């Protein structure tokens, strides 16, 4: 069979006067070319018509960051939603944290943003203040059962642009197997100080095989800096969107890290840099190379699964040795946000409402994105939680009375803070700067 079958009358056409034929051919070719160009130009614009099929089904795109476990749980929640709403199809888009924000920025710029966006507090002001996120208070989403602090975290100048997906706290996760192998007892986290932390970590390193360290280094994100600053009466940001600390406050933090590094309580500078790039399931804690590490509470179940053993959730150490001074806070682990340019705001709101308030969503998602902020759902899914989830819920509950004031929301531009901290941490660890220096260079752009 010929690859490009000719129409039956093609031969006849060729027999016509060459001039007339050529003219007709070229006119036809011009039309075809114009059509191709038009299609290309249209498809380049992206978006195009709303993806609404003839049978009235609506397709929504939903993007999040996270690992395999989260993907499985979220797909299950999507399935439950689609069963209840056969006219709405949810198309998932997910990937690692590291590539997520570049992709989202590009999609939003290209007017091709997903309808439902998993948002982080570092970026929510960035996006909402520029009008990229939908004000969800204008849609039919029930927020009456949400914890007040969690609800407020998603409010800004442009309305309610994010609904907390879960509640989180900064923690230190300990791997008891590493402690046991080194013959070091687990600390009492209600009483320990930063000096205890350094001493215990160094002891584990000394008594463990080569390549195993007492603790992972902090300083690869801003969470541990936030805790440190709060314990010293400062904060990362002020409520008017400025930095809440002075160079001297932050240089102390790096000086202590340097000290930990010198007594080998934390891995070598090179290993710290390499660990930054590792995904959660290949992190030092998950592979049994670190006795302790700094993680958010909701990450404990995934890490426990990756490590194949039991993990213990610890409070941060304090300066005073009293958990009452730990100055932890409840953080909205992630937000459900919607693109302001979504073509189906009603359906998008319906899905966010489902994720927030429906017990079936809760039973699918469990505590992967933190403790459920909806108190009804939280109670209803209690029996379904895995032992690891229960641990997280218990921890969040335990620290309730020790919490400090809710921190000010990160301002516009806060998305860059993690990279900045990472960079200076490696400069400190590689001794490329004197330890007072990094703070003196203003870390914000």
């Amino acid at each position: 069979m010929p690859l490009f079958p000719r129409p039956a009358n093609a031969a006849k056409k060729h027999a016509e006067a060459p001039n007339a034929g050529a003219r007709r051919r070229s006119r036809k070719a011009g039309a075809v070319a114009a059509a191709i160009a038009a299609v290309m130009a249209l498809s380049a614009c992206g978006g195009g018509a709303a993806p609404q099929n003839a049978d009235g089904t609506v397709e929504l795109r939903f993007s999040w960051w996270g690992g395999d476990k989260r993907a499985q749980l979220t797909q299950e929640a999507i399935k439950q939603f689609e069963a209840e709403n056969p006219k709405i199809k949810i198309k998932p888009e997910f990937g690692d944290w590291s590539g997520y924000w570049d992709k989202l920025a590009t999609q939003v710029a290209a007017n091709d943003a997903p309808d439902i966006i998993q948002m982080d507090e570092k970026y929510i002001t960035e996006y909402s203040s520029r009008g990229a996120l939908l004000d969800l208070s204008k849609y039919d989403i029930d927020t009456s059962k949400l914890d007040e602090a969690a609800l407020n975290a998603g409010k800004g100048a442009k309305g309610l642009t994010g609904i907390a997906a879960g509640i989180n706290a900064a923690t230190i996760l300990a791997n008891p197997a590493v402690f046991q192998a080194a013959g070091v007892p687990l600390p009492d986290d209600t009483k320990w100080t930063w000096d205890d932390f350094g001493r215990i970590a160094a002891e584990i390193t000394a008594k463990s095989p080569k390549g195993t360290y007492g603790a992972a280094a902090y300083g690869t994100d801003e969470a541990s800096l936030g805790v440190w600053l709060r314990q010293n009466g400062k904060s990362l940001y002020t409520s008017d969107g400025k930095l809440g600390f002075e160079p001297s406050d932050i240089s102390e933090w790096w000086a202590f890290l340097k000290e930990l590094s010198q007594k080998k309580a934390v891995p070598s500078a090179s290993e710290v840099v390499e660990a930054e790039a590792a995904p959660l399931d290949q992190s030092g804690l998950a592979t049994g190379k670190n006795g302790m590490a700094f993680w958010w509470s909701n990450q404990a179940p995934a890490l426990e699964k990756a490590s194949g053993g039991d993990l213990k959730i610890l409070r941060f150490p304090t300066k005073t040795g009293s958990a009452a001074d730990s100055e932890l806070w409840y953080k909205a682990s992630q937000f459900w946000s919607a693109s302001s340019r979504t073509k189906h705001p009603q359906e998008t709101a319906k899905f966010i409402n489902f994720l927030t308030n429906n017990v079936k969503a809760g039973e699918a998602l469990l505590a992967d994105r933190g403790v459920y902020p909806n108190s009804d759902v939280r109670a209803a899914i209690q029996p379904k939680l895995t032992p690891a989830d229960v641990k997280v819920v218990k921890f969040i509950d335990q620290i309730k009375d020790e919490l400090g004031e809710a921190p000010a929301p990160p301002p516009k531009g806060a998305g860059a803070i993690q990279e900045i901290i990472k960079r200076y941490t490696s400069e400190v660890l590689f001794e490329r700067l004197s330890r007072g220096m990094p703070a003196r260079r203003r870390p914000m752009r």
Partner: protein
Amino acid sequence: MSAISELSSITRRKGKVTPEEKKANRRDNKAAYIFLLPWLVGLVAITIGPMLMSLYLSFTDYNLLQPPEWTGLHNFTRMLSDARLHNSLRVTFTYVLIGVPLQLGVALLIALVLDKGLRGLPFYRSVFYLPSLLGGSVAVAILWKQIFGTTGLVNQVLAMFGIQGPGWISDPSTALGSIILLHVWTFGAPMIIFLAGLRQIPNMYYEAAKVDGATTLQQFWRITLPMLSPIIFFNLVLQIIGSFQSFTQAFIVSGGNGGPSDSTMFFTLYLYQKGFGQFDMGYASAMAWVLLLIIGVFTAINFIASKYWVFYDD
């Protein structure tokens, strides 16, 4: 256009052009443009359009989410005081000025060895060319990361000799070197071109030189190098342009942040971070035009300098 019509257009040119022939010519042109159209659409929509857009954006403050605002030369004046940008230029120049000569040197050396008429030449040629196909890829950059990691292959071999190697990629003092090495390793493309060039040098020159008692080294300096100089020049221009734009290796090896502590922060990587990480697309666009300018200047210098060292046989 068929050979016949081409030939007939030659004969046509000799005589006077009749109106009818003019019409036919126009028709031919039209056909040519129609056939060119897919490429033209691509050029305009994918290359020239975005380029003009980025030129416009380079004079604006554009955060991707809101419409750009005209700020004149502000982005360019900001560059003068951007220490990280200056560092990225230093990193990029180091990479180009060390990496390119090193890579071309290795490529020429291997080409000379292969040109000696090795048995199984096609096999070796393919083997040496392989890294060029893979070198720019994400997979190899990840592999590189493993090989040069703290507990990677290189350090395991060194450990056999009792040497504790550094974390080649995670140590700021060796990270750039590791990426330059990755670049040198992808010498296959210039090597193939050198090999073709070497084949072009007439054997009689060498025979004559041998009769006169020239040593191998003398033959290399007096015959091979001058005869090959146009090819060297060609490779040099291509490699310099390509190296200034290199992005993938540094992006993957450093995990996208140009780390540790900006030691592998290439100009392109910084541009990317500014544009997509920090919502500063106006500045990133301005950086792209500065890079174009730098590449243009280097290429111009190359062409001017070529008058003094490139020898054309004809």
